[in-house]
């Protein structure tokens, strides 16, 4: 069991935000038994995703996406029944007021994850990153659930993380995607309809390792780690620099939900071979 913000998780493997659509949560939970599922980032009103192309593969195990926080709105959250796996409710908005309004309507789920880092819709996500202190402070005033703040691999990540923590965040989710662009050289147009997109997958894995390492080293805080985990080894790596839970995202897009089972198995085999428990691993590469 892993204790994160006072909640017990059966193992570290969860699904990151933006992967499972609300109507699929039940099925995915039952068939693949992730320890928790993070919802898509929910806003007050439904948001349409950007027009396609919204998701392309640019290299082996590496994608660019600009879904743009498309979601059915917070009021659809109530359609999710009690699950065998835990729910992390990802929340977003274009203002502190909207985010607080959304938070007030979160009536289920163990943890709230504040998305202050998506690079894919102006006015949302990373557009609010500079207000991280104010957002967290306000949010903590209207919910009793643990609040995790999802941040990006920014140059000022130590300061941003510090502001989130000092405002009362219970932990951090690291890292969001990296803003990139792909050009079609046949037409010289940007491939993504939105123009840019977030780079995810194996390509950003060593970046995730470094960011989680630096933040954990500085603050020794609860971290949900994510960023290019494609194998049990990748997951162990993120745990060794301080992540307690590991979010899978791009690997599911690339390989399907069965990757959850494969990665969990690889992690368990690793532990067995080494005679270790998960708690032996968390942050061990930072302390050294």
């Amino acid at each position, binding site marked *: 069991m892993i204790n994160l913000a006072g909640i017990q998780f059966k193992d570290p493997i969860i699904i990151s935000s*933006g*992967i499972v*659509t*609300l*109507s*699929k949560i039940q*099925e995915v939970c039952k068939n693949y038994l992730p320890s928790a599922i993070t919802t*898509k980032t929910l806003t007050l009103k439904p948001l349409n*995703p950007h*027009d*396609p*192309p*919204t*998701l*392309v*593969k*640019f290299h082996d195990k590496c994608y660019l*996406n600009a*879904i743009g926080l*498309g979601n*059915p709105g917070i009021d659809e959250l109530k359609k999710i029944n009690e699950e065998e796996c835990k729910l992390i409710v990802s929340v977003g908005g274009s203002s502190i007021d909207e985010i607080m309004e959304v938070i007030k309507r979160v009536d289920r789920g163990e943890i709230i994850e504040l998305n202050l880092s998506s690079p894919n819709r102006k006015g949302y996500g990373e557009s609010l990153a500079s207000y991280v202190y104010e957002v967290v402070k306000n949010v903590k005033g209207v919910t009793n659930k643990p609040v995790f703040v999802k941040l990006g691999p920014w140059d000022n990540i130590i300061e941003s993380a510090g502001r989130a923590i000092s405002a009362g965040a219970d932990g951090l989710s690291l890292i969001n995607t990296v803003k990139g662009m792909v*050009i*079609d*050289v*046949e*037409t010289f*147009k*940007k*491939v*993504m*309809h939105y*123009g840019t997109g977030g780079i995810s997958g194996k390509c950003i894995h060593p970046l995730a390792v470094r960011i989680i390492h630096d933040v954990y080293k500085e603050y020794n805080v609860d971290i949900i780690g994510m960023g290019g985990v494609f194998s049990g080894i990748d997951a162990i790596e993120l745990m060794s620099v301080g992540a307690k839970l590991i979010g899978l995202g791009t690997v599911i*897009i690339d390989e*399907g939900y069965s990757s959850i089972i494969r990665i969990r198995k690889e992690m368990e085999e690793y532990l067995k071979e080494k005679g270790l428990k998960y708690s032996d691993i968390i942050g061990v590469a930072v302390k050294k």
Partner: protein
Amino acid sequence: MIYSEILYSKKISNNLYEIATFFPQKPQPGQFVSLIIAGEKEIPLSITDYYEGILFLHVSPKIYDLIRDRKKILIKGPLGRPLKLTVSSILGIAYKDLLYDILYILREAKRKGINVKVRCIECNTKEFPKADDEKADLIIASVPKDMISSLPKEALVYVRWVKMNCMLGVCGVCEIKENLACIDGPLIKVSKIVD
């Protein structure tokens, strides 16, 4: 997503063009690809055949117009759920040109020695024997939306009438009764999507 070089494109009928394009990864039967029009749109396309590195597609005049002047196109995929062809008989049901949606499956099945018959509604095909009944281990179909209810409940129907966006199961746009046409489909059991 790769730049796929067009080998040839030709008019088949007033409503249909055939495109043959180099594509290194063999799709599995049941899968589809998408055509990326950079910055503008992305169009899911059924596969009509695949042979030694060449992907065969059939598209409408409207889609053909988008790429007629191009030597290379951006193709994403293969996408969707592969079908396991471990049966001994397959019945294909199609309405007119929608036969092209399921042709790759039928052809791969035939190559594997599976007994393939086809019921082509308002159309003909010499490639496969005509079906006299609906007895088969597996029924796959492509028909207009309003004809689905007439299909056997256990048939797999090619869901081509929903809008798609990301094509990889994460945006939720192609949801149809808790199924996502892009990853649970494009072939989905009729009973799962009719009331």
